[in-house]
């Protein structure tokens, strides 16, 4: 009997594509006998277009109707089927069939009565020489596989006929079979609807085949099949739908006995897959992963319905379709291809570093030599002290015990949040787990090489010229603020200086790589942990990046999250105290400094005194005041280079660099006027050096831009600037040999040996340390055990205001001990668990650079007074003078297990919660930052982007039906989406130029050949460094297409 075809066309706001589809329908050599048009609540011209076509039936339906339900609605208006010759042709608004498509499809069903479903070869809408999809199948485990996808059609797959399934758009299906099986499963609204249907067709004893001669173009509008758009929201929704569909089918197809196992595995699998999603750099899929798992787990009625329907129509066993599934070997092959494509994408991300050929190794070698020369006295040291340095805790366990919310073992001890810096120290100490304090020695020995290496690597983002990179490394390594931090023993500021270039390095790439975004987030957290004062400036830069990042905004939004998670316990406490500003206080040992004039900071000296020249010049027979002239003059070349960069090509990048510099300077000035902490009677200002590091980063960045713009002319000014800086930094670099450095080698003790020995027996033995203060008062603190540790310091303690009752009692005891008093000290000493009293040398008031601090008369008198009183206290026995001060011993019996023990579970619920949050956030960020290449989704999107681009290039005006005659040149498909702008930048129009988010405010700088690439007239090989990388990237165009 003659076949009778009912074409059902479904449209939902598809006017843009509907026109072509309807025209194609009209042009069919075999016209459908009936046309049913279903308009799913379109708000555009779709309904008019459909009506104008003149369908047999026109149905206006709800917008929420899925494709399957729309078809069902349409079938309902048709008269009952009269036999197997009645066929349904399922079309969506964007299913434009070629003229002979229906004829070929109908022929297939007419020739073979056993075939119930025939599918066309679905082509790309805009590039119709590319296959959109051609046949569907499943893996042995039930995952969906598109047999041919995003591939150039060279008729290489035309031999394909019997398949497990075909996609919905353009499918021709026997009406009887459709009715028998009840159409598409309404639990699969978007994804896998046709796959599931075809599987049921197969299991009902019919065949499904593809007809390569029938071609239908599809635009991926999301009416039939998922929306193919690469926009974040749509693609996240698609991923979720895919996962939901997979889980639904798994529960439907599973044998009854396996249902429980599958059900129980839903949520654990979601966790596992989330980790994999992070590693695949698809953090956006995680929410969908869990949503799908939970909805599959708790919306069981749909599964029951579907299982019943399947059981009712199934006539064959599952084994009957096993030959049509994709074999395990084929699945592995496909995975391997995807992985390769992903890795290529990851490689494409890497900037052109050429560490060895561009002189990076020589720069590093030079820095190592300078570092060894400067810090030679520390070779063989076990621990460092002085300035802000103290030994770390003795074991890795103790280091990590000082992290998070819990007992802060400083002074009398209290429950509170640790500084995020403790985490940084714990990580450093874990690296040298055999002796955590050695980490600080290592930090000093490696500081200069690490700084040079970091700056060299960061400059690879800006320039390919080895000489400029080397200069940047030298300028960064010899920065006065860095050398001052080293000389004055400020580990946090040293770390900030070492990490800032890497933040720049990672932040630049964050726009196009999740891995770089994760790394940037971790570096951001580490830097803010080391110098909370930098947080405002970094957040401003981050905000600028977020606003500039356009559709890649998600890769920037999360960057401050790990820092926030780390600081959560501290924020909790300071908010409770209503002491917001104190969050900016420097972590570590509070070190009072003398005020620094702003002009010294502008010159880059955070401790003032021009780095010690006024002290050094008289030794060489000069006058101290000459330094005031000499040092600024020597810094002039650097300043001029930085400013000139604004006049040269690349001025936009340079401007961003200088904005960063100004933010850094503002941070430094602001920091030096904030005294948030106190030690004894001295207020402690925030160290301006961290801000100056950012300032210096901006200046060095601007100098690099200037050097780039000056081409060959740059060498002389660069060398002059670097040499002048070397001279300026001489007294700072030589602080250790000159004896002006505060840092010194130590044996790792911070208490007299007598106390340390006692601490071995009684770990919580208490020592009352009394430090006479410049105003004549005393600072009295209890130190438990072997002594103070750097990782146990807490800004909560140093910025606290007010005095607790316990502190007041201790103060009363100490005040009476320091006076001629009638107080019975022994009872009080025992109550606080104090076995020793240590009178330390009087606190010094900070003076000029390099000179020892001054001790006031009042402090000396207090020292004498306290000695006299302690000598006269009956409860104390003098032990003698030690390297740490004068020591007395109390023989009063005290149970230090009771007095001074750390309470169990001090952190409580807050501690647990904040720890979980921090571990989750940091863990996720670490997973994200591991460079594993792009995920499948990214590879898929890259293919689609490549196709779209190819079509656009071949059809510059508008998509007309120009066929293979004007085929686009082969284009890399393995490219990652973000890497788009790397190829053929020059030929692209601005319309498709992606926004180039600049993480650390250096627009145009990192993106080689990006729209901001300077000087289009210059030769690509010598001008814009990025452009030279373009050929390197196109090397990665090896064909990794699926299905080859």
């Amino acid at each position: 009997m003659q076949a009778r075809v009912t074409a059902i066309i479904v449209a939902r706001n598809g006017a843009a594509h509907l026109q072509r589809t309807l025209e194609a329908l009209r042009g069919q050599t075999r016209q459908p006998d009936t046309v049913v048009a279903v308009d799913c609540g379109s708000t555009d011209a779709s309904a008019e277009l459909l009506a104008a076509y003149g369908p047999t039936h026109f149905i206006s339906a709800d917008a929420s109707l899925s494709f399957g339900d729309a078809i069902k609605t349409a079938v309902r208006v048709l008269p009952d089927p009269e036999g197997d010759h009645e066929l349904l042709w399922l079309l969506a608004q964007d299913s434009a069939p070629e003229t002979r498509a229906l004829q070929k499809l109908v022929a297939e069903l007419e020739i073979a009565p056993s075939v119930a479903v025939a599918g066309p070869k679905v082509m790309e809408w805009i590039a119709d020489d590319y296959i959109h999809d051609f046949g569907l199948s499943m893996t042995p485990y039930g995952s969906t596989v598109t047999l041919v996808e995003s591939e150039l059609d060279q008729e290489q797959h035309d031999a394909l006929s019997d398949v497990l399934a075909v996609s919905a758009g353009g499918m021709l299906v026997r009406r009887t079979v459709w009715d028998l099986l009840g159409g598409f499963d309404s639990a699969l609204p978007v994804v896998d609807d046709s796959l599931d249907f075809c599987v049921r067709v197969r299991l009902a004893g019919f065949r499904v085949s593809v007809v390569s001669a029938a071609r239908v173009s599809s635009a991926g509008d999301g009416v039939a099949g998922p929306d193919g758009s690469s926009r974040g929201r749509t693609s996240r929704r698609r991923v979720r739908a895919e996962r939901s569909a997979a889980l639904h089918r798994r529960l439907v197809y599973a044998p009854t006995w396996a249902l429980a196992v599958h059900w129980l595995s839903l949520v654990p699998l979601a966790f596992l897959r989330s980790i994999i999603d992070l590693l695949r750099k698809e953090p956006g899929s995680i929410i969908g992963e869990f949503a799908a798992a939970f909805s599959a787990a708790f919306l069981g009625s749909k599964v029951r319905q579907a299982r019943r329907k399947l059981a009712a129509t199934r006539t064959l066993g599952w084994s009957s379709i096993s030959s049509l599934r994709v074999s395990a070997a084929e699945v592995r092959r496909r995975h391997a291809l995807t992985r390769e494509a992903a890795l290529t994408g990851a490689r494409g991300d890497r900037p052109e570093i050429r560490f060895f050929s561009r002189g990076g190794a020589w720069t590093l070698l030079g820095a190592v030599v300078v570092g060894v020369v400067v810090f030679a006295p520390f070779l063989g040291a076990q621990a460092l002290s002085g300035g802000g340095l103290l030994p770390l805790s003795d074991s890795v366990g103790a280091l990590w015990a000082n992290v998070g919310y819990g007992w802060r073992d400083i002074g009398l001890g209290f429950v509170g949040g640790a500084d995020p810096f403790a985490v940084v120290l714990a990580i450093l100490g874990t690296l040298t787990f055999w002796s955590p304090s050695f980490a600080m020695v290592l930090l000093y020995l490696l500081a200069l090489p690490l700084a040079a290496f970091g700056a060299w690597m960061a400059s690879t983002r800006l320039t390919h010229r080895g000489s400029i990179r080397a200069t940047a490394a030298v300028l960064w390594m010899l920065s006065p603020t860095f050398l001052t931090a080293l000389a004055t023993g400020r580990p946090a500021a040293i770390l900030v200086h070492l990490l800032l270039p890497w933040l720049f390095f990672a932040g630049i790439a964050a726009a196009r790589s999740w891995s770089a975004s994760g790394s940037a987030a971790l570096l951001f957290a580490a830097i803010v942990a080391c110098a909370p004062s930098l947080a405002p400036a970094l957040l401003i830069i981050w905000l600028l990046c977020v606003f500039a990042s356009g559709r890649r905004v998600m890769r920037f939004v999360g960057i401050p999250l790990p820092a926030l998670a780390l600081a959560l316990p501290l924020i909790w406490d300071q908010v409770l105290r209503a002491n917001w500003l104190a969050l900016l206080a420097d972590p570590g040992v509070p070190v009072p400094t003398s005020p620094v004039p702003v002009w010294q900071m502008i010159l880059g000296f955070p401790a003032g005194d021009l780095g010690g020249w006024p002290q050094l010049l008289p030794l060489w027979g000069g006058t101290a005041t000459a330094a005031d002239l000499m040092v600024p003059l020597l810094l002039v070349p650097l300043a001029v280079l930085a400013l000139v960069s604004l006049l040269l090509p690349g001025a936009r990048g340079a401007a961003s660099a200088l904005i960063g510099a100004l933010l850094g300077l503002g941070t430094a000035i602001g920091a030096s006027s904030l005294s948030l902490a106190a030690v004894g009677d001295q207020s402690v200002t925030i160290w301006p050096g961290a801000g100056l590091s950012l300032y210096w980063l901006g200046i060095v960045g601007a100098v690099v831009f200037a050097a780039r713009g000056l081409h060959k002319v740059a060498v002389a000014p660069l060398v002059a600037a670097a040499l002048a800086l070397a001279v300026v930094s001489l007294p700072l670099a030589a602080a250790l040999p000159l004896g002006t450095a505060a840092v010194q080698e130590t044996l790792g003790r911070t208490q007299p040996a007598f106390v340390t020995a006692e601490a071995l027996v009684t770990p919580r033995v208490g020592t009352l340390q009394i430090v006479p203060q410049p105003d004549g008062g005393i600072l009295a603190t209890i130190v438990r055990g072997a002594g103070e540790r750097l990782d146990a310091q807490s800004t909560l303690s140093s910025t606290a205001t007010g005095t607790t009752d316990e502190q007041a009692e201790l103060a009363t005891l100490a005040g009476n001990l320091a006076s001629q008093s009638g107080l019975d000290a022994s009872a009080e000493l025992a109550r606080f668990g104090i076995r020793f009293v240590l009178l330390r040398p009087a606190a010094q008031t900070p003076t000029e650079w390099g000179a020892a601090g001054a001790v006031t008369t009042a402090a000396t008198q207090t020292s004498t007074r306290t000695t006299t009183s302690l000598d006269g206290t009956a409860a104390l026995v003098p032990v003698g003078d030690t390297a740490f001060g004068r020591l007395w011993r109390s023989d009063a019996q005290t149970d230090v297990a009771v007095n001074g023990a750390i309470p169990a579970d001090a952190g409580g619920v807050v501690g647990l919660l904040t720890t979980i949050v921090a571990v989750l956030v940091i863990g996720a960020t670490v997973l994200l930052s591991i460079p594993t290449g792009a995920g499948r989704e990214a590879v898929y999107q890259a293919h689609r982007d490549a196709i779209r681009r190819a079509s656009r290039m071949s059809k510059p005006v508008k998509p007309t039906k120009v066929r293979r005659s004007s085929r686009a040149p082969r284009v890399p498909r393995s490219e990652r989406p973000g890497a788009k702008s790397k190829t053929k930048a020059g030929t692209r129009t601005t319309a498709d130029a992606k926004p180039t988010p600049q993480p650390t405010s250096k627009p145009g700088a990192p993106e080689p050949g990006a729209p901001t690439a300077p000087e289009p007239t210059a030769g690509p090989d010598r001008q814009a460094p990025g452009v030279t990388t373009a050929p390197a990237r196109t090397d990665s165009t090896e064909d990794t297409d699926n299905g080859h």
Partner: protein
Amino acid sequence: MVTKRRVALVGARMTAGLAGIVVVVVAVGGAALAPWPAVVSEPEATLVTPVASDQTQVCPGPLLTLAADSSQADVATSVSRFDTVYGARAAGTGGAVVDVTRSDLAAVENAESARDGAPQLLTVPAGAAAQAAALVNGAQSQNAASETLGGLATSACTAADSDSWLVGGSTDVGRTSLVLLSNPSTVVATVDLTVYGETGQVDAPGSTGILVQPGTQRIISLAGLAPNLLSPVVHVQATGGQVAAALQQSVISGIQPGGAELLGPTTDAATEQVIPGVVVTPPGAEVSVDEGAVSEDTPTVRVLVPGDAPATVSVGVQSEDGASAGTSLEVVIQPGLATEIPLSGIAPGNYTVSLAGDQPLVAAALTTVTGTATRDFTWASAAAAQADEFLVYIAPGPAPALHLANTSDVDSVLTLTADGGAVTTLTVPAGQSVVTGVTESIAYLVTGGEGIAASVGYSGDGLASSYTVSPIGALVQAIPVYPR
């Protein structure tokens, strides 16, 4: 066309670049010049007032003479008895009397202590509930007129200390200087004496490790440690127990006694020192010196800079009698050298000498008096400023006067309440001094005494002496304690 556009582009870039440079320079320059507000979180301290303990003071005991017995040339013996006045008042009560226990210290080196009396130990037990220490004061006086020793010597009873300075004495021919070390505590005190002279620190064997047993007084002859010093300054440092140090100086001119004085410790080294009660008397008739030369009778100030940097010291001499007379001079004093600064050309009267240096220093002033028959001299030590109300006992002696110097920068209104109820009100303008006559052998409770340095002076015919009124001991003053 192309070149035109290029020119335009380059021009635009230059303009924008120059604007950027201006912005950067203005921003940086503005940052350097702008006044930046500062947020300072002030450190907080707990002011701890020590729990009151037993207060002890030591009166140094009778004047001693060496070699009264030629067979025992280095044995000191006392010549006559001395008088002591003492007492205590509860602080802040307006004069409630507190009991004082008096006991004797063992003066084993004075053969005649049984006859003339021993050094006195005054003890004020800590009150049960009393938080603030009681005001306790005592003084002694002795008018000696023996063959070898003559003159008026008065001294305040002082608290023991571990670190004190004795500025005075001489071991020149005819001068005898004895260091009296009294240990009122219950533990042995080990005392190190550091003697500075006009040529610097004296290397004196036997000056260190002097053991002073609890409850005893040791008498050390300064000449034995450092002979032939014109202007010694002795630094007394005690470890273990604390000692009350005093220095007795006596002079014999020919065979006539030329005066005697007992001087207590001066204040600790500081950049500012105030010596109230420097009494300048008319020079003796027989004294005639060359114009411009420094007479032995010229008032002098002895200064020592104990540090290691030279000090520029300005010496101000200010009248206590309301006269405008006063001089000021500036001298540079080398560290470690006991230096005498003569105060020439000052009219007779009462003066306060103030010293202000750029390095810490210790100081005392020496004045002489020539009477019709006898001569005497007096050492006026620097006095520390009082913290609040204070008690002063006036030892017996001729024409006692209370010298009050206001070291603060606000006018002080003092109320002197004598035993028996007589109330005197005095105003001491900021930075000025007054002198007021007082009655011997009674006590005065002075209120409103913050910033007042006080001393008691005597002057009779050929007799002179003075002692300072020490504020409550530094060791019992409230101390700020910082918890972090």
